[in-house]
């Protein structure tokens, strides 16, 4: 619910000084590569900001994005975000249920009209009137449109909300679409990933809170601060790629020696995310470091790109079958053409 106290006052009541904002801003500014002056401004603005009302809508999703954002280990820096926001509606985390929680959503919308942020995970089914996913008797589409009407901004988290994700994978039985496909009159920030890196989600919220504006986005609506570089360019295995040292199988000597996973289908060169730099679980590791190629989960339709283990340079689709058919047809055509030519020549000779 809305509060009149600033975040600085709130934290002070809990015995936390405004130094926490300075530290938080240093950390986030470093992650987002903000100029130092901007980081300082962020610390000041955050301390003065009011707690941000956030309404979190869950549609066709697996709750992995929520798992990711709550995956902090203790009362440290990353969790400060949960002091900065008021999570007024969230299916998995809310204590209340039924009519009470729907009433809470409406109350938050009315109280913070034009100021609240809507976070969405999951795609929206549009086929057959959207009956494939409903809450409180309303289709996801109706809930989304009602909720975003008075929002300040919408943050789509996870590849399902940002690009349709796995529900949209072929043959897309529910007619799933992304949030950006539906919400056209509000800023939509996409934080894709399956799940997204927690810092990318919280960092974007903190940026919105501090500066009251949307961070710079790329052509797919992703904050450039987190999705500006591809995995391959920042991958610690990159030197092996340049040296032509590739693991040929998951259990060969190359794989054990940490060689490049390109041949095993790594999609790092065409995937834009911060995994290689920020890493996961507080900087412990990321998929490539754990020995598996990048799946490209922060890119649209990553599920339908011809296979996770097909190298990027290989063709996709039934190429081998087509080529086999073409070879047969070509051979027949060639032999037939030769036969026709021979026949014509011999009949000419006779004639």
């Amino acid at each position: 619910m809305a509060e009149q106290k600033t975040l600085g006052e709130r934290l002070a009541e809990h015995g936390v000084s405004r130094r926490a904002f300075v530290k938080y801003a240093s950390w986030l500014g470093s992650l987002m590569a903000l100029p130092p002056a901007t980081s300082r401004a962020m610390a000041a603005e955050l301390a003065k900001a009011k707690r941000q009302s956030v309404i979190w809508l869950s549609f066709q999703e697996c709750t992995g994005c929520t798992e990711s954002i709550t995956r902090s280990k203790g009362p440290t820096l990353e969790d400060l975000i949960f002091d900065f926001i008021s999570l007024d509606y969230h299916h998995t985390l809310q204590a209340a249920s039924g009519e009470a929680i729907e009433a809470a959503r409406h109350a938050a919308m009315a109280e913070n009209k034009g100021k609240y942020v809507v976070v969405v995970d999951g795609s929206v089914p549009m086929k057959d009137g959207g009956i494939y996913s409903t809450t409180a008797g309303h289709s996801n589409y109706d809930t989304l449109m009602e909720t975003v009407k008075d929002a300040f901004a919408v943050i789509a988290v996870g590849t399902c909300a940002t690009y349709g994700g796995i529900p949209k994978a072929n043959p897309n039985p529910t007619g799933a679409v992304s949030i950006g496909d539906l919400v056209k009159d509000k800023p939509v920030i996409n934080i894709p990933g399956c799940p997204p890196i927690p810092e990318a989600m919280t960092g974007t919220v903190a940026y919105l809170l501090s500066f009251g504006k949307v961070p710079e986005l790329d052509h797919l609506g992703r904050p450039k601060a987190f999705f500006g570089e591809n995995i391959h360019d920042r991958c610690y295995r990159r030197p092996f790629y340049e040296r032509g040292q590739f693991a040929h199988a998951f259990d060969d000597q190359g794989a054990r020696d940490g060689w490049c996973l390109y041949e095993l289908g790594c999609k790092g060169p065409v995937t834009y995310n911060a995994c290689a730099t920020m890493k996961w679980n507080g900087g412990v590791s990321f998929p490539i470091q754990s020995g598996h190629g990048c799946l490209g989960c922060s890119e649209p339709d990553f599920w339908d790109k011809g296979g996770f283990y097909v190298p990027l340079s290989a063709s996709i689709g039934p190429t081998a079958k087509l080529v086999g058919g073409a070879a047969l047809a070509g051979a027949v055509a060639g032999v037939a053409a030769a036969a026709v030519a021979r026949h014509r020549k011999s009949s000419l000779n006779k004639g």
Partner: protein
Amino acid sequence: MNADCGHPAPAASLADAVFAELAHALARLAETGEETVVDLRSLPFGPADLEALAEKLGTGEVTVTLAVAGRSEVRETGWAGIWWVRHFGDGEDVVAEEVQVTRIPEILVSHPDDVAFAARRMADAVVTTGPQEPTAADEEDMSRG
């Protein structure tokens, strides 16, 4: 992991470049009072580069440990006005590391609003329970402090 770690020559030159930049920044601080922050994470620094820079900067008289949303460490280098700031997250992970060219890093200064708030609470404490007793707010510290 990093193939470049083993080569001392480029490491030294990168640290030299940052050192030179810091020298300019310190001159600016002395002349105009303009402060500078260098985010060490934004530089293509390996552990060897950090070590080389730390060695060149040396250690001064002040080392402060803060307990603010995890641990932080502020150390004055051998050059007055150049401070090395390290922020830790949960445990020993360094989440942010910067060199600040300033008379005193912002994070050490008590914020005016914090001072005002403390002054109010302290006044209350004097009137009601006496100076020794901690307030409820302090108890509620949530292990941040």
